[in-house]
């Protein structure tokens, strides 16, 4: 039980936000990709509320 508490932890993680690359035109006809692009474009959907919205429709808590 003590072992995990002795682990080193890090407060900050390297800032590695990706640049926005251009999605291949062939992928823009993909339903899954378009859905994700819509979500990324909408700030609300990528914030904390995205978790709650996903939980409501699906279940994020599988083990």
């Amino acid at each position, binding site marked *: *039980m*003590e*072992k*995990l*508490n*002795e*682990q*080193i*932890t*890090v*407060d900050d*993680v*390297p800032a*590695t*936000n*990706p*640049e*926005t*690359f*251009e*999605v*291949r035109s062939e*992928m823009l006809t*993909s*339903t*899954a*990709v378009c859905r*994700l*692009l819509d*979500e*990324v474009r909408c700030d609300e*959907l*990528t*914030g*904390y509320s*995205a*978790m*709650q919205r*996903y*939980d*409501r*429709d*699906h*279940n*994020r*808590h*599988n*083990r």
Partner: protein
Amino acid sequence: MRLDTVLLKVASRCNINCSYCYVYNQGDTSWQRLPKAMSPDTIQAVVTSLHRLYEDQKAGFAVVLHGGEPLLMPRQLLRALLEGLAEALPSCVRCIQTNGMLIDDEVLDLCDATNTTLSVSLDGPIGVHDRFRVTFAGGGTFEGALAGIERIRSNPKANRLFTGVLCVVDPTSDPCTVYNFFKELGVPSVDFLFKDGNNSKLPPDKQGLNSTEYGSWLASIWDCYVADQNPPRIRILDDMARLLLGGQSIKEGCGQRLYGIAVIDTDGTITKNDTLKSSFDGADRFTSQWTILSSRLSEIAATDEFQDYARLQHPTSPTCRSCDQLHVCGGGMPLSRWHDESGLNNPSVYCADYKYLIRHIQESLFGNCTDVESR
């Protein structure tokens, strides 16, 4: 720190015996010392405590009934808990993660009445599912799980009640067959999970630290997914792709957001993320003896001990810290970084799988990665 997930271990036993289960078959023995189900007093304390947490945080969180098998909880207690939670936390998501074997009309009516959803564990077609998800006598459980899903789907409120399936990946199976099976079943979402394992104990069907069985299996699922004009949600692929597209993930094990996860055992003990159990016996226990009967969750979440636990989600290994894919994999689940001698200070046992999968998604989305990197 804000809690986004409270996992209620409402039953500490299970009616089946999956060989890969982290609760019973990976070395943790805490279930043997726990009450089989939450008592009425503990249920009342949970409802009161979670209502107080909601008021303290002024923000919602998901409440997940888990086990063992949560539907082993006696029905009158399950009713008391779900009705109490619905009244105390009307705006919070409440769901049950079940193996599906005990779903009946009474459960569905109760879920409908309390606005509670169901997610079922199903690993794929019968030959895939029954390889690991077996009874105590060693028989298959596929038919029982499928019957449970069919009961949900035949309910008039199925669209609201059924949130999807949890599928533990079997990399020896054919990924397209598994994908098409879930499509034909009409599941709204699939959460593919890697089997538990670590740097001292390789996951089943993984040959070594540099092998990519799991990564290449999910890469094939990605190909099916993006070609499908009416795909279900696939949470892990969505998380990785969203991160590559500049967005964020929504679950621990991907990305670098810290998640606030508390688990409450059947006796009311508050523990860490239960998946840590697969690392060593008692790995999910806090040093502090917190219990829902006497501790305030918002105060626990503000302690150094809880925040140290939350920060375990960030990998510490120099290999991870300097990796250009860290923003996507996030180092994976902490349990998979474990090594009996070096603790969590290692890359995930699935590091090679993550790299393979992320590169595959990256190339699918943006074209040749060499071109991308040189832009």
